[in-house]
């Protein structure tokens, strides 16, 4: 394999927390050295643009098996490459759920058609029904990086406690969805002025805290390694801080949409702004942004959820929740950078380094020896978002028609270029 020298770059190093001019040499798919003088290599002139570790996106929904018309590994992979996502951590909320080693082997084989790395999470319980645990050991051997029932929260605490205890013995990571299911049933907005005005069935943001407190108590009881998929309200943060201070093996994530949008964006029942959990108040949004900045929240995910037009062109309450986000992830994150909330190393710590570390993957770093999964981007390049130009099969993005800043110029996986912007 050849040696590549990324010259004249602005290196974003989340591990060191630095944002500085430099160069990077890559050999055999691995980062060889930083700031090497005149190496024998093919030179890529970065033109002073940002070079960062590729994004590791924890919690991407791909429609395989079962909903390939919404998204395939091929289309999701192309979207990821165009969005600077070099590792997709796929969700098991498929049809059927990824709950057996056989299904996991099938999706692992199918995933080969994607130009980026794909790792899979498996269901924690059979059929994600919250009653009987899956073959956590076999699934782990077959490559599952974490176990989750995604947005389904079981009320059978005995079953969940057993699954967590079993997972703990294998050192497996469990990803939970903090939400009280009986309070949130049927709700598609956050309770408050906006939901009342629009007459949308709503759930109190406290329901998230109740779900989180429950999960944290289970973690204390079982000792399992735990990651909360999305913390979206200020009410949940004290519990999270307490758990971390008490030494529980707990991390938390949030979604890029909850960091950049609020409940008022729903406007006149725009279903592309319907999410699980629903968008929150502006105060909550700002509290979550601050929690990412201070490290209380570790991971930012896109929570990419393809939904076809039919499932979105329905009355708000009946419409599907979620948005495609692989391609808009980085530009949306740049909103936080341009607003002065987070610097670039902090963003890539939450979008690449932390999720990789939590899953035990070597990605997310610019250090010698790390995989050469890289994204070259211009944080200032403006563009008008057009959803029909997205590579995802589904076009359900809340950013349609929005003014964005931040363009991916090139993406490399293991030193091989998988995306080059047409106008770069």
């Amino acid at each position, binding site marked *: 394999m050849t040696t590549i020298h990324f010259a004249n770059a602005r290196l974003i190093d989340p591990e060191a927390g630095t944002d500085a001019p430099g160069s990077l040499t890559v050999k055999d798919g691995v980062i060889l050295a930083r700031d090497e003088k005149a190496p024998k290599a093919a030179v890529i002139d970065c033109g002073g643009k940002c070079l960062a570790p590729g994004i590791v996106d924890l919690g991407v929904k791909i429609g395989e098996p079962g909903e390939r018309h919404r998204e395939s590994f091929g289309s999701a992979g192309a979207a990821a490459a165009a969005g600077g996502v070099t590792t997709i951590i796929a969700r098991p909320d498929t049809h059927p759920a990824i709950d057996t080693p056989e299904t996991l082997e099938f999706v692992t084989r199918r995933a080969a058609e994607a130009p980026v790395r794909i790792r899979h999470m498996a269901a924690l319980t059979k059929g994600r029904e919250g009653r009987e645990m899956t073959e956590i050991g076999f699934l782990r051997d077959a490559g599952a990086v974490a176990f989750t029932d995604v947005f389904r929260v079981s009320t059978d605490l005995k079953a969940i406690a057993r699954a967590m205890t079993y997972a703990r013995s294998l050192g497996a990571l469990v990803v939970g969805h903090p939400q009280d299911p009986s309070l949130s049933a049927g709700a598609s907005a956050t*309770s*408050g*002025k*906006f*939901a*009342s*005005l*629009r*007459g*949308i*069935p*709503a759930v*109190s943001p406290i329901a998230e805290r109740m779900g989180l407190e429950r999960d944290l108590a289970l973690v204390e009881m079982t000792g399992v390694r735990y990651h909360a998929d999305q913390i979206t309200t200020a009410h949940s943060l004290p519990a999270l801080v307490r758990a971390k201070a008490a030494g529980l093996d707990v991390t938390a994530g949030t979604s890029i949409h909850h960091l950049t949008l609020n409940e008022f964006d729903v406007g*006149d*029942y725009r279903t592309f702004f319907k999410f699980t959990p629903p968008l929150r108040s502006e105060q909550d949004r700002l509290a979550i942004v601050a929690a990412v900045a201070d490290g209380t929240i570790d991971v930012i995910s896109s929570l990419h959820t393809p939904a076809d037009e*039919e499932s979105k*062109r*329905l*009355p*708000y*309450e*009946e419409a599907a929740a979620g948005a495609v986000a692989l391609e808009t992830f980085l530009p949306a994150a740049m909103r936080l950078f341009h607003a002065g909330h987070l610097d670039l190393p902090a963003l890539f710590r939450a979008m690449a380094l932390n999720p990789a570390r939590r899953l035990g993957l070597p990605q997310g770093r610019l250090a010698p020896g790390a995989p050469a999964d890289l994204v070259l981007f211009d944080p200032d390049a403006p563009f008008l978002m057009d959803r029909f130009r997205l590579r995802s099969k589904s076009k359900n993005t809340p950013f349609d028609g929005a003014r964005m800043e931040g363009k991916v110029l090139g993406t490399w996986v293991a030193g091989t270029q998988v995306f080059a912007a047409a106008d770069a």
Partner: protein
Amino acid sequence: MAFRARHLLGIEHLSPLEITTVLDLAERYVDLNRRTVKQSDVLAGMTQINLFFEASTRTQSSFELAGKRLGADVMNMSVANSSVKKGETLIDTAMTLNAMHPDLLVVRHGSSGAVNLLAQKVDCAVLNAGDGRHEHPTQALLDALTIRRAKGRIQRLTIAICGDIAHSRVARSNLILLGKMENRLRLIAPPTLMPSGVEDFGCELFDDMREGLKGADVVMMLRLQKERMDGGFIPSEREYYHRYGLDAEKLSHAAPDAIVMHPGPMNRGVEIDGDLADDINRSVIQDQVEMGVAVRMACMDLLARNLRAERGRKIVGMMA
């Protein structure tokens, strides 16, 4: 013209001037409706479809009568016979009806925002006859007309709305309309039936009914849905009546000339005392029904005028 709306989806989109325009025109239709010969031809040749995804007797017949008195061809589409039961989506239903070129589409649907969605897909004027717990604009307009006729004005009144506010589209539309007309609003409900965040709408909230009624000029009662009566939101029917049912004693805390309203159908002995509901000196409940037909005639008349003007502009544009 003072009334510019293309559709009547909610009170939210109407200006105070547009509201007054509807009420003024409705007054003329009240007079027409009291004559022996009630026919008008302002909608002659036009087609009105009543599309009701939720069962309704009162609202649907009121719209039907309003359309017929204005000379429109009125068709009622009931859900039981429609292809909705066969899995057709709301938008497909809308497109199918649209292809039949109706001029006025009156829609009731169980989901908030469903009528807005449908209005985006059709060429005709859409009237919201109630969507989920969002809005029921003609109800608020007929209530406003009833109040204006009884009180001589629709401003600077103290109005108490009492009952299941959380699940009521009637309450929401009334809140918006009466707020826009600068009245003093009070909401009276057990906390389980009070929506969150409404204090920001500029209303005073009460869970004690006598307190809330003090000095009120207008008392609007809301219907309590049967399925919410037992245990879920309130302990029981009889406890609800004891604490929130309107009777002569509770009404004595309101202004001496306070009027009593109810959008119907009433649960006598649950939210309102039967004798009080029938007291012609206090209750304007029958007037509300009468005003309903007149207000709906006025709304359809105004929307039809805008529709004709819009089509006229299109034809002129095509010829130019």
